[in-house]
């Protein structure tokens, strides 16, 4: 299997963590995996993007129009990054307003859970339900492996909230 996934959002929304969780899940499933991240000044609230390529690849970068799926933590980034995805790609968007792609108000639900930073994992849960390539079991294991101990339960709960 080959999968090219983009994670798009604003600096500070937990894009890097989400990238590692999905890459970790791909590992759990026995796939080769590469990621590419944004560091430095762009992390100060600007638009950021991560790539995940699962399967046999040499480069972690994704060419325009080749992505299989995109998780958008900020709907404003749709116009910035949607061109990276194939026309028939799966979109998963965090948005409280109506949107032409499958969406969920992950930020609103995260606030209900008492922590706005959990929107990333809620969106991931939603993407899993809608058919993102990795298995729920693999994602859960990845969350357990990569979360700090005191946050494991809250992170798993956020994932479940998104799946629901």
């Amino acid at each position, binding site marked *: 299997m080959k999968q090219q996934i983009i994670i798009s959002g*604003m*600096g*500070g929304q937990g894009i890097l963590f989400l990238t*590692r969780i999905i*890459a*970790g899940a791909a*590992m*759990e499933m*026995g796939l*080769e*995996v*590469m*990621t*590419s*991240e*944004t*560091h*430095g*000044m*762009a*992390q*100060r*609230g*600007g*638009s*950021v993007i991560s790539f995940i390529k699962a399967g046999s*690849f*040499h*480069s*972690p*970068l*994704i*060419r*325009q*129009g*080749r992505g299989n799926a995109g998780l958008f933590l900020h709907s*404003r*980034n749709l*116009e*910035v*990054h*949607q*061109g*990276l995805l194939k*026309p028939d790609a799966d979109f998963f968007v965090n948005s409280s307003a109506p949107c032409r792609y499958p969406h969920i108000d992950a*930020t609103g639900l995260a*606030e209900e859970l008492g922590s*706005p930073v959990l929107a990333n994992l809620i969106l991931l849960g939603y993407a899993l339900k809608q058919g993102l390539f990795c298995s729920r079991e693999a994602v859960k294991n990845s969350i357990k492996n990569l979360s700090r101990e005191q946050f494991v339960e809250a992170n798993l709960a956020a994932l479940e909230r998104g799946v629901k």
Partner: protein
Amino acid sequence: MKMDNNKKLLMGNEAMGRGLVEAGCTLVSAYPGTPSSEILGAVVASRNAAPAGIHLEWSINEKVAFETALAHSYTGKRAAVIMKQVGLNVAADPFTRSTYLGVKGGFVVVAADDPGPHSSQTEQDTRLFAMFAKAPVFDPSSPAEAREMVAQAFELSEKYELPVILRPTTRICHSRQLISSREPIKLERQADFEKNPGRWVATPAFLTGLHHDLNKKLAAISAEEGLEPVMAIAGHEPDYDHPCLIASGMAFANVFDLLEELDMLDKVDLYQVKIPFPLNKKFCHKIRENYSKILILEETDSVMEMQLAAHHAHGRLSAHVPGQGELTPDIIYAILLDFFALSRPEAETGAPPARGRRPSLCPGCPHRASFFAIKKTFPKGIFPSDIGCYTLGMNLGAVDTCHCMGACISQGAGFYHSYAHDGDDYPSIVVTIGDSTFFHAGIPALINAVIQKARIIVTILDNSTTAMTGQQPTPENGILADGSPGNRVFISDIVKACGVGFLREGDPYDLETFSGLLKEADNFSRTEGGVAVIIARHPCLMDKRNPTKHKRVVMTISSDCVGCGICVNQFECPAIMFDEDEKKASIDHTLCVDCGVCEQVCPTGSISKKEGGK
């Protein structure tokens, strides 16, 4: 199926850090800079695996880091120095001479390039700099390869007694790949500096001879059998009727995937070059003489293309490859279509990426308060600034120049001398420089400005950390790279010792008092004549070590808001939203950190402390 449990998803920087420990390196010095910053942290994380222990340091700048590591190598031990590409400009002096004099223990310079650039003031090619200084350079195409090359670079360095460069690019540094760790090698070397004045002192009389030896070493490396670039696909034999593609670094990884996508891997001869300088002589000859169709892909300049000197080759010099910028998959794809004379499939006319939201200073960032006060106090001032998070003060109109580390103070002085030349009615010149940048290259500039009687205000933005690159300690923290206590050096002591006649310290969160200090400084500078320094002290809110958590002041915006937009446009706080229809501002409490500074910004008093707030 389960992967090898020993394999971890390591970032390129972590892989190189791990590689340094595994290669038996016993000193690693660095100055942080994107994209190289996480390498030293990775060495710190795996230092306990090193049998001989490692001296680790965040040096004050790249020149100092380079020289410290170089002397370590003189004693026969393995050393490495890490920096971003422009850091090598700062270390250019020791670097260019180090190839003449050579080294003893393996000496590896990790200089991370930033084609694009994503987070740098130039996109210069360190491989070209290596060619200028005559140092061999490795160009990795993946995190795993970067880790392998650390060990190879040490071996090459010891074999020829030369400094060797490892040049990853941003995409290598910040990519992750599955990598398994290995046991570090045991070298058991004792420090043994063998005196040899003709070499280590090398007065001009010795240098032509040393230069001759250096040329001989490079000729030997470029003739080494084992270092000749090979076909990228094992088992492929050259077919001189094929188009020939030569690539190094990330461009190789990208072109490999694209050729696979185009189903052309079998129809071309693809070579990966791992050592772009000095390029293997036999390889150059073979390519030049045998292939009629050649494409060279390299970042970010024409290092291989110049050495290959195949005048029929397509590359940056022939303008078949853009002369600037990153070789992204999209750029290479267009180059390949052109090279193979293929037409672009109709379906592939997707919209090019739009510009995303610009970065801004974090909510509650003390720099925002400093910049707001500076801009408000001196509406007609000139504001030279410098490199760090605070370059984002340009969003508030309080940063007019940014050049290179420490330049703001000298540029401020230069502005003053230019305006003063025309008369006494010069604009107030308010320089902003971060604490780490001040230590790095600001001190000589400050002494010079004092000597030359420049009438400028230097505001040192002291957030007690190196924030932009991930919270590395500054000399004032007194914390060493491994977290252990070191000695502290205070900014205020240095400022006084530089001969500055006016020094005040203040918390920019208190806008009124801080603005008063700025006026006082301006008055001193104009009447007494000279440099006035203000240290704007407030810790970075992102710093986990931050000892003084600020008092939380929950703010609210009342219906009295007249929609003047000052809090949004001039204060530029990301936590304040503006409703264009209602013409009113509101606070986004998920982003707001309750710093309370905006209360002093609102001219109508509509922003106030929330009743019953925390």
